[in-house]
């Protein structure tokens, strides 16, 4: 079986982190995990230390992309075969990891835990953004990604290295569309997700609108101009 690292980016998740990590270590001890504390203002880091969880503590807030990249660099440096992102708010359920891992081992580069592969996507305002992004990816790559905004994504070794070293590789739908365009194999696996257990969601209405504008422009326009360069690692490039 491949050696999997579960990256759990956590920003102000003191209310949820214990339950999420405890479930993982109790029921799924075969997987390794690492909590990346993204400069939380609450006691997330202290709680992780008190419980003896494996923790990477970022001294400043980097945002999700930075926190996740830290986890992937850890995976790359410690010879993991694959890595996945799991939210610290309890929305992602570890019982689906096995199915996703199987799909990855069958030869995919990226496996997305999708809410809407066999289930119909509800036509609500909240899902409007998801529809727009799905449609943009369809238009620019010809591939159907049913749940592009799902944060539950698994990456193989080559992807881990590429994500760990490069600029503009945030764990977001625009990167997925870019990689599909460049020949990566992306598969989806049907999963169910829970509601966030406690605390505030980062996505307010205004932030969602900003996110949508950014994603649409990025997928429909900017990704066409990118050049994939897996030869030169990022630290050697001058910005």
């Amino acid at each position, binding site marked *: 079986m491949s050696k999997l690292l579960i990256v759990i980016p956590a920003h102000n998740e003191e209310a949820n982190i214990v339950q999420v990590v405890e479930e993982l270590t109790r029921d799924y001890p075969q997987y390794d995990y690492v909590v990346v504390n993204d400069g939380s203002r609450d006691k997330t880091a202290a709680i992780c230390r008190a419980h003896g969880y494996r923790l990477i503590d970022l*001294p*400043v807030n980097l945002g999700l992309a930075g926190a996740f990249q830290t986890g992937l660099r850890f995976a790359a440096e410690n010879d993991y075969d694959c890595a996945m992102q799991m939210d610290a708010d309890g929305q992602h359920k570890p019982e689906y990891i096995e199915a996703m891992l199987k799909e990855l081992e069958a030869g995919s580069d990226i496996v997305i835990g999708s809410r809407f592969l066999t289930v119909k996507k509800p036509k609500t305002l909240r899902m409007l953004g998801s529809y727009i992004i799905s449609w943009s990816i369809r238009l620019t790559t010809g591939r159907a990604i049913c749940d592009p905004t799902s944060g539950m994504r698994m990456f193989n070794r080559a992807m881990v290295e590429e994500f760990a070293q*490069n*600029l*503009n590789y*945030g764990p977001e739908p*625009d990167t997925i569309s870019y990689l599909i365009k460049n020949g990566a194999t992306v598969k989806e696996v049907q999963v169910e997700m829970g509601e966030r257990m406690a605390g505030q969601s980062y996505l307010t209405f205004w932030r969602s609108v900003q996110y949508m*504008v*950014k994603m649409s*422009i*990025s997928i429909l*326009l*900017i990704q066409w*101009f*990118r*050049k994939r*360069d897996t030869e030169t690692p*990022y630290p050697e*490039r001058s*910005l």
Partner: protein
Amino acid sequence: MFDQTLIRICLILGSFITAGYILRRVRQAKVQIEDTIFWLLFSAALLILAIFPGIAYWAANLLGFMSPINFVYVVIIFLLLAKQFFMSIKLSQLDSKVRILTEQVALNEEKVERDKLDL
């Protein structure tokens, strides 16, 4: 009439040069995508004002400007001021992050050296 055509050509050129330059930086992976959005929208705004001068005439008339080109100036000045404002905030945040990081590195260094002395 000639005068206005020249201005419109300049706006279109400015728009394409801005977009072209920023997209080249994306291609070379030398800029983060979130930082390009503003410049792409900015060049789109210039392009729209150049292609549809009616907008400038209508807005200048509405706001009581002497000449439509003044409306174009106001739009550009406003967008650049807004950008300047948000960059100022971003810069301040970056500054404090660098300070915290420097402190962190120095404290870690001190811890490593203290452990060495203890041995």
